[in-house]
């Protein structure tokens, strides 16, 4: 871990390569989780009739909050495992921004540290503000 903090690590490895790898691993991990949850889901409910989605009712708190999803995963609730994968899908590009931020800090590119922080703030705003109408 010590190596990651040093500047030479970032310069040697080329940040663009690292960002590419982060995106790929993010997608891979997310799809493995989704696949796992999906298989369990089909095993448990595969023979049941498809629930109607003709009208929009919205998902309950157990699928829409991090707390609810983690709780469900602990109880091995299959749809919650899929939702964990959904969280991983959404988190990958957000992590990519955080990652770019570190890269620009190391490069001492003040302008782009500011720009990246701005984008990160917008993402945090949509996560934590009262957007839940």
């Amino acid at each position: 871990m010590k190596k990651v903090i040093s500047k030479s690590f970032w310069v040697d490895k080329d940040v663009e390569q690292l960002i590419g790898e982060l995106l790929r691993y993010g997608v891979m991990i997310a799809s493995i989780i989704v696949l796992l949850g999906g298989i369990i889901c089909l095993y448990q409910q595969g023979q049941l009739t498809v629930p109607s989605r003709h009208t929009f009712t919205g998902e309950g708190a157990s699928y829409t909050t991090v707390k609810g999803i983690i709780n469900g995963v602990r109880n091995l609730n299959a749809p919650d495992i899929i939702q964990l994968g959904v969280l991983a899908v959404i988190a990958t590009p957000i992590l990519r921004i955080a990652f770019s931020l570190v890269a620009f800090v190391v490069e001492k590119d003040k302008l782009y540290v500011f720009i990246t922080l701005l984008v990160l703030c917008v993402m945090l705003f949509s996560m934590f503000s009262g957007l839940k109408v």
Partner: protein
Amino acid sequence: MTTLVFCIILLAGAYLAGLVGSLTGLGGGVVIIPLLTLIFHIDIRYAIGAALLASIATSSGAASAYVKEGITNIRLGMFLEIATTIGAVVGALIAVYTPTNTIAIMFGSILIFSAAMTLRKKNQEALAEGSKLSYLLKLNNSYPTKEGNVEYKLKNVGAGFSIMAVAGVLSGLLGIGSGALKVLAMDSTMRIPFKVSTTTSNFMIGVTAAASAVVYLQRGYMDPGLAFPVILGVLGGAFTGSKLLTRIDPKALRLIFCLAITFVAVEMIYNGYNHKF
């Protein structure tokens, strides 16, 4: 219909969506919404949630390769993401107050626009002289080609930024990556070579879609029963598409696909107009 049968059909449909989407450059999300609403009669809000996830997953998957090749302009992407993410959050906010049939009509119009954009002539040449702002923001860059590295400059930064904000709003409102608008902003307005525009657009789609996906998740638009077949299907299709892309000539395919997309778009607009959503 049992859940198992439903999942298998949707998985196959999503696979096709990802395959054709990646071969034509329109992305899987665009096909997912008509598939879910017109064929499975699923509420358009669930379809938007699923399409957003499909867009993010394909963007991350494809972007990883382009970034490695050094074609993507990361600084440009980062700078324009200010506009697209703010737009996406605004779009997701106004989506609550927008009737679903209006969303369907807008979606149909964007589909026709995207199809037309795919068929148009592309900007290949690199600008030798950029605008002041492009130097100030360090947006000028180079990209590798068969003939070696090509330097390019860009202009109309403000106009490109504004189009990106609109692309963001539409992305948040309709649940798509709005890649066609992003490419328009970079390729036609900022005069960036087409290869850089498409790859940078792809790179940005994930972040733009994630900005509104967070809002949609909290609102209950993300249905795990749909997310499972859609994410896996689209990813598998996009992966196959990227392997096929080097071996086939997508010109004819693009033309057929654009005709099909236009047909679907007209149906979406017609249904939206008659309040069938």
